[in-house]
């Protein structure tokens, strides 16, 4: 299925390769490099590249290309999702998935790749199970290891592989039994010049951290389950029960996992937390322009907007920006032509404003298109869709667990056109 994997960095250096079947020469990557060159931007490399004898399926993540070599017909989504899973596993193990961490932990990377695929077929990809086979590096453990010379490999076989419920290992024991849920919602929206919504939707996930002894059977119910019509669940959730009663009933995996994800695309349900008043104009003569951006709260349900960042991709002819921010700091990178304005907390009494002039390359024509603004923000203790967890019940075990739910709203692909 997946024949080989090559990791290639942004500069085009191939820094890791792994072959699960026969060794395929690195030269197969030349087709990839050709496509990479043609695409100019690394983002634009097509995910599926056809070569005379293989298909190359690649993903681009954290400035690394994961290029897989395929020789037989496979479902493309399968491979793409698998490559993402590989990247996520690295992230899970090393805290971040970057070239440096992969090179630093090359031994664990090989161990992981060896366990995740055999003969090109996915074997163990659940992070629970992998972590029992290969222990992730921690500072403490690596120190202990250097002193005692012991290794970071599980001495016994993962029990999870032997239990009747594949996602949960048997005989789990905790002194503090706790179950925490994070409801994370991201707003994807495009607003047009006048501030009206062109498109908006919410992508939500419920992340769970469940540390409960034994075999608990949980059921989670919502105050307003009707909001959710487009959902997908972790395999542990009993789907029939959801369909009939709108209750999420499941035996949880041990540790961290994503319980469910959902989309809310009905536009009237999507509240837009901030508004942006902007005016970016370029003068016909004098090779300069003016910019004036104000951000204010719109529908925040009484909560504070935090971590507000406005990013502007300027046209190529903009050389520098001379601006004045009433709050926060701004930074214009003349190489990438990206203006980042880090506002921080949004104060509804005194709206943050960024105003000033832009200087353009002299002699260049006035840019045709105005740049668009990307907004990043965070609202704690609020799910913008209004989703609320009603209660969490546990059956099958006698102890009383600690329970908790946190809500957070973030901006996903939130864009304002000018």
């Amino acid at each position, binding site marked *: 299925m997946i024949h080989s994997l090559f990791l290639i960095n942004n500069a085009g250096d191939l820094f890791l390769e792994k072959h699960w079947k026969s060794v395929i020469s690195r030269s197969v990557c030349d087709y990839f490099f050709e496509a990479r060159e043609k695409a100019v931007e690394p983002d634009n490399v097509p*995910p599926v590249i056809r070569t005379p004898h293989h298909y190359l399926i690649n993903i681009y993540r954290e400035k690394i290309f994961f290029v897989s070599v395929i020789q037989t017909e496979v479902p493309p989504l399968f491979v793409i*999702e*698998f490559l993402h899973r590989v990247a996520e596993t690295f992230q899970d193990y090393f805290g971040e998935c970057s070239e440096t961490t992969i090179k630093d932990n090359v031994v664990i990377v090989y161990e992981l790749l060896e366990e995740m695929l055999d003969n090109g077929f996915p074997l163990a990809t659940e992070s629970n199970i992998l972590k029992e086979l290969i222990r992730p590096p921690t500072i403490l453990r690596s120190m202990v290891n250097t002193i005692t010379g012991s290794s970071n490999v599980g001495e016994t076989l993962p029990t999870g592989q032997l239990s009747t419920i594949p996602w949960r290992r048997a005989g789990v024991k905790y002194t503090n039994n706790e179950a925490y849920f994070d409801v994370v919602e991201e707003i994807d929206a495009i607003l047009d010049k006048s501030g009206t919504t062109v498109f908006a939707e919410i992508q939500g996930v419920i992340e769970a951290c469940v540390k409960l002894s034994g075999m608990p059977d949980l059921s989670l119910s919502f105050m307003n389950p009707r909001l959710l019509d487009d959902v997908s669940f972790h395999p542990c959730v009993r789907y029939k029960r959801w369909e009939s009663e709108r209750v999420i009933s499941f035996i949880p995996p041990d540790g961290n996992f994503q319980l469910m994800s959902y989309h809310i695309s009905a536009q009237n349900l999507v509240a837009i937390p901030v508004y942006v008043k902007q005016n970016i104009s370029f003068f016909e003569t004098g090779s300069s322009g003016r910019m004036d951006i104000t951000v204010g709260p719109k529908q925040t349900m009484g909560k504070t907007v935090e971590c507000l960042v406005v990013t502007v991709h300027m046209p190529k002819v903009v050389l520098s920006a001379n601006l004045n921010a009433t709050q926060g700091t701004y930074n214009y990178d003349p190489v990438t032509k990206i203006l980042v304005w880090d506002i921080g907390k949004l104060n509804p009494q005194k709206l943050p404003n960024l105003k000033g002039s832009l200087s353009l390359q002299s002699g260049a024509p006035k840019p045709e298109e105005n740049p668009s603004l990307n907004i990043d923000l965070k609202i704690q203790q609020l799910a913008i869709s209004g989703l609320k967890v009603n209660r969490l019940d546990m059956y099958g075990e006698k102890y009383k667990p600690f329970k908790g739910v946190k809500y957070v709203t973030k901006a996903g692909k939130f864009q304002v056109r000018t």
Partner: protein
Amino acid sequence: MPYFGSEEMVKELKRALSNPHVQSDRLRYKNYITKVIRYMTQGLDVSSLFMDMVKASATVDIVQKKLVYLYMCTYASDKPDLALLAINTLRKDCADPNPMVRGLALRNMCNFRMPGMTEYIEQPIVAALRDKASYVRRVAVLGCAKMHSLQPNTEIDGRIVNELYALLRDPDPVVVVNCLRALEEILKDEGGVVINKPIAHHLLNRMKELDSWAQSEVLNFLLRYHPRSDDELFDILSLLDSFLQSSHAHVVVSTLRLFLHLASAHRAVQADALLRTSAPLLATCSAVSRELRFAGLCHVQQVMRSQPGLFATHYKRFFCGYSEPSYIKFRKMEILVELVNDENVSLVLEELRSYCTDVSPELAQAAIAAIGRIARTYSEKCLDILTGLLALKQDHITSAVIQTFRDLVWFCPQSTAAVCQTVEAGVDRPQDSEGKQALLWLLGAHGDQMGSAPYVMEGYIDGLKTELSSTVKMELLTATVKMFLCRPAETQDMLGRLLHYCIEEESDVCVRDRALLYYRLLQRGAEETRRVVTGPKSDPSMSVLTGRQEEPISEWASTFNTLGPLAGRDSCPQTDAISAADQPSYSAGEELLPGSEDVTLSGPGDTEEEISLSLGAPLSHESFEKMWLDLEILHRQALGVSRPRTAPDTLQASLQLEKIQTLAFTPADTVPWKAYIYTRSTGTLILAELLQGATDESLVLSVKQQPVNQHAIRRFVSVLKSVLQTLNLE
């Protein structure tokens, strides 16, 4: 840098590894081994350390074992004789009490890709198939496949195959799936693993225990199974039902494919499955990962071929974000064009309008072409936008707009007047050759409606010496000749100059020949020239096939969830690739009307992707008969339509419109009824026979071809089918 002084480094490592002091210090020893692996992964040749590394494999430390195994697997094929030394250690490890060590040793032993391994690994594998730890059994099952691939040409070991089939009942789900995978590889030449009724139902019942990867693979294997009865079919479908809502896109798509395949006779079930998967598919289209989004869009595109209405209300999901990669934007635009209806047309157009000024010229051109496609239905609004774009005076935009105008006039003759008015009102001269050709074509074909046309053309003739592209020159010749036919007084002088220059001074043979052709043609008189040069001004096939047809699901179900649709086209379709896709008859009578459209002359690259049929020179009865007898039948299928009840002349004429020539057919009332037809396509000749046994029975089509080109046959069959269906409707 690893490449400088690498020999020194290898020597140093060798010294260290063979140093007894180092060997006795576990930690230092392991650090050196790690170093070796690090160099190996950087592409340094450390194969000379093989002996020392083999020694290091005798350890209790699992990580060290893994590292050494990794090393051995990499270099075993280079040093087969030394690798044999390691086998003893490995075989000893295969009997280790720790199942992990057993599995590890077995897996690596199977990964030694060197000849002659089979005799050493066969016995441990067979033993491990009955191991009590499932981890070891998983490894052993795949080991069977690896063992087979070591000697691909030997006879298949029936004992192992039987053992693997028996292990399909293993309690561990991963072992079950690995068995399928291994059998599939071993039995590749015999058509892969056999899925009979007990196996199919066994797999279906265990689906819930599998992880998502295995589910997806099992679903693909199940495509081979054909339920015997409808009851069984619906049992299977209801078992699979919940997987349509899986949280993994690849499982959803695989399930959908299986649904479409199994329920091919039940339209309602198929439609229902498509409806239910539309939500997860849309979710994939807005996934965080851009590659997943792209794959999702490709799948949506396929579904839309049969159910264009399914996503109509969600058109806003296909608006492009600023930061999305271009390959996603192209797909989204293609989808948007399909989703346009009366309600959303103005919003979609406004959206597309904003892409037209994108920084990337390819994207801008694709957006303009997309507006052109919409213009075939909503001409007025689109023409306003396109005209507005001309005012931007951006070179690549102007060129794309003019090309779009040309395509629009060709497909949608009622917009001709408006287009001519716009072009007349003054457009900038496009600078690239594609744009120039388009403008010249417009001037030539519709010069009678544009007062200033001859003067624009004169500008081009004056600048002929600096023109580099020969296709532009040929287009200019054709356009001038056409213009001369409708406005001789204004054009005569410049045509003379043009012909003189092209015949006397032009170095390009094609241009000179074309000029000579016209020159001689004009000597025969204006009437004769008119008869040859003026072709149809719009696409003649439009009268037969109007609007986009909803294709049956079976047309695309077989390629659903495969790599083809994702890699099939170039990821950035050029503007003419989009328009060429809908122009099956572009090469209409190209021998006679050389100038009517230069797309076919601009190079084989354009036509390779999209196959069009053409008439070519007529075939005599004798030569047809001879070829028919010589060639073998390549393709036979029941078309599922009966013979149209129209007059034979109508049938012949409509086939001819689609560039299918009729050679002969039996009188209408004879049984069996037969017809012989033929057509040409990109260098191949297709001969076909239509046969109808009894009245009202389905027509059976037999196709012969020379040389073989399966794409052309498929194209031919679909064209033929649509013609017959259209005729039957009337």
